[in-house]
């Protein structure tokens, strides 16, 4: 029997709130099926299951905020005998794990499992406190002494609300989702800068021909078939990442760099009021420009509506972050762990440029690649930028 747990939907996620089950006990499920909807700081995410089988029991109640690793459901293989009482508080490693996550032993068990009576609280091992990861993090931020707190969670575990109570001195004050997102992004970015030895290469590229190509195409195309420069940039990233594998994959603490055959560029989308989400455009290396554009439209639309999928949140292999049509001319970005590279793109600018020996006004764009020095070096990143520039300058090429 397998246990389906609250997945980590990115380095910046600590907890998720289960808001909808799309399966019930007795339903057959297959790897990749969307089985639940979890609300995170980045909106509602559709969660896929990564095993085949039959749903045995739903363990988590709707509306509860649960830490990453908390058991959500049990799944048995077709024909597998079901044990009388399911032991569900020690989940196996989450299937879609792309990085080691905080110890599941500290996860708040789904205390409201309807089938099994609440287990007697196991005594905490030798003075070790039972603390949920979210509670631990908040306590660390606020400087709260955990040993002085009385836990209200299962088995006396200290949960987030206990720490909030302690810091507020009164019943937990709910922080806004936006504040929580900023906090989560801050934590992920701090971790990135602390652990990843970043280095940067920059190049300014003449994009006059690319803009000319887009203008010509868009003049006659109906709105549905128009292209944006952003699609050209994401496709150029995908094609370059397919050729320079040291920039495409994940760096895992236990395994080191694991390159990815598939290129899934995360497309950074700014959310209203601040914050960022970077869902992956899956297998973009195999897409034409029209397919890339259609895929990005779909991602942006779903990001706004809060219907991204868990796999899109975790399986990005490189990130593209673009400042859009107006704004600063260059950006050196922070890599989104466990990825190993980020392509930061400034706004297009009209600049004096030398073409065929003469200075002429051209529209140019500055790309800065942030890369992980544990995995790549300047030569490889330079090759990536050369491939990227070539693709951007020839957007019509298949």
């Amino acid at each position, binding site marked *: 029997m397998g246990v389906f747990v609250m997945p980590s939907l990115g380095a910046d996620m600590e907890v998720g709130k289960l808001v909808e089950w799309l399966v019930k006990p007795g339903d057959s499920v297959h790897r990749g099926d969307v089985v639940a909807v979890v609300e995170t700081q980045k909106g509602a995410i559709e969660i896929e299951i990564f095993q085949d089988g039959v749903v045995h029991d739903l363990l988590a109640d709707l509306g509860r905020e649960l830490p990453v690793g908390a058991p959500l459901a049990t799944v048995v293989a077709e024909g597998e005998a079901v044990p009388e009482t399911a032991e569900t508080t020690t989940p196996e490693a989450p299937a879609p794990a792309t990085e080691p996550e905080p110890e599941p032993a500290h996860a708040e068990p789904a205390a409201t499992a309807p089938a099994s009576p609440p287990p007697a609280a196991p005594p905490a091992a030798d003075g070790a406190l039972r603390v949920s990861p979210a509670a631990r993090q908040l306590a660390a931020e606020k400087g709260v002494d955990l040993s002085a707190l009385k836990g209200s969670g299962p088995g006396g575990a200290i949960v987030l609300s206990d720490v909030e109570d302690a810091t507020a001195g009164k019943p937990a004050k709910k922080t806004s989702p936006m504040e929580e997102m900023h906090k989560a992004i801050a934590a992920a970015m701090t971790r990135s800068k602390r652990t990843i030895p970043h280095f940067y290469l920059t190049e300014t590229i003449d994009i006059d021909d690319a803009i000319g190509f887009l203008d010509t195409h868009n003049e006659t195309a*109906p*709105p549905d078939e128009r292209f944006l420069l952003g699609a050209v940039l994401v496709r150029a990233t995908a094609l370059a990442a397919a050729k320079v594998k040291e920039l495409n994959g994940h760096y895992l603490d236990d395994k080191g760099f694991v390159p990815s055959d598939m290129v899934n560029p995360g497309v950074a989308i*700014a959310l209203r009021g601040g914050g960022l989400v970077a869902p992956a455009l899956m297998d973009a290396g195999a897409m034409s420009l029209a397919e890339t554009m259609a895929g990005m*439209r779909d991602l*942006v*639309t779903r990001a*706004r*509506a809060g219907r991204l999928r868990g796999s899109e949140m975790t399986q990005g292999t490189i990130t593209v972050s673009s400042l*859009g049509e107006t704004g600063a001319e260059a950006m050196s970005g922070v890599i989104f762990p466990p990825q190993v590279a980020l392509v930061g793109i400034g706004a297009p600018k009209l600049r004096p440029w030398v073409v065929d020996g003469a200075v002429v006004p051209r529209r140019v764009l500055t790309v800065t690649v942030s890369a992980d020095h544990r995995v790549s070096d300047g030569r490889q990143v330079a090759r990536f930028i050369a491939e990227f520039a070539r693709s951007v300058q020839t957007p019509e090429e298949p």
Partner: protein
Amino acid sequence: MTSTDIRAVYLEELLRVAPDLDADSIGDDDHIQDDLELDSMDVLNLVAALHERLGVDIPEKDYPEIATPGRAVGYLSKAA
């Protein structure tokens, strides 16, 4: 179609593209990119939706004409 109808269609599609906007707080002079924070993909989605609903072809050079609800109503009334 009256300008009131066109305004309603415009706002309806704007909210479909950006469902997290607060409908009541959108003013006639609010710029969809500078004030309401739509990105270029959102703008394209809005243009596509208006094309679908009103049959108005909005070329790229005319995008500034639909950048605020106030300007859009004038432009779309003439074109529709």
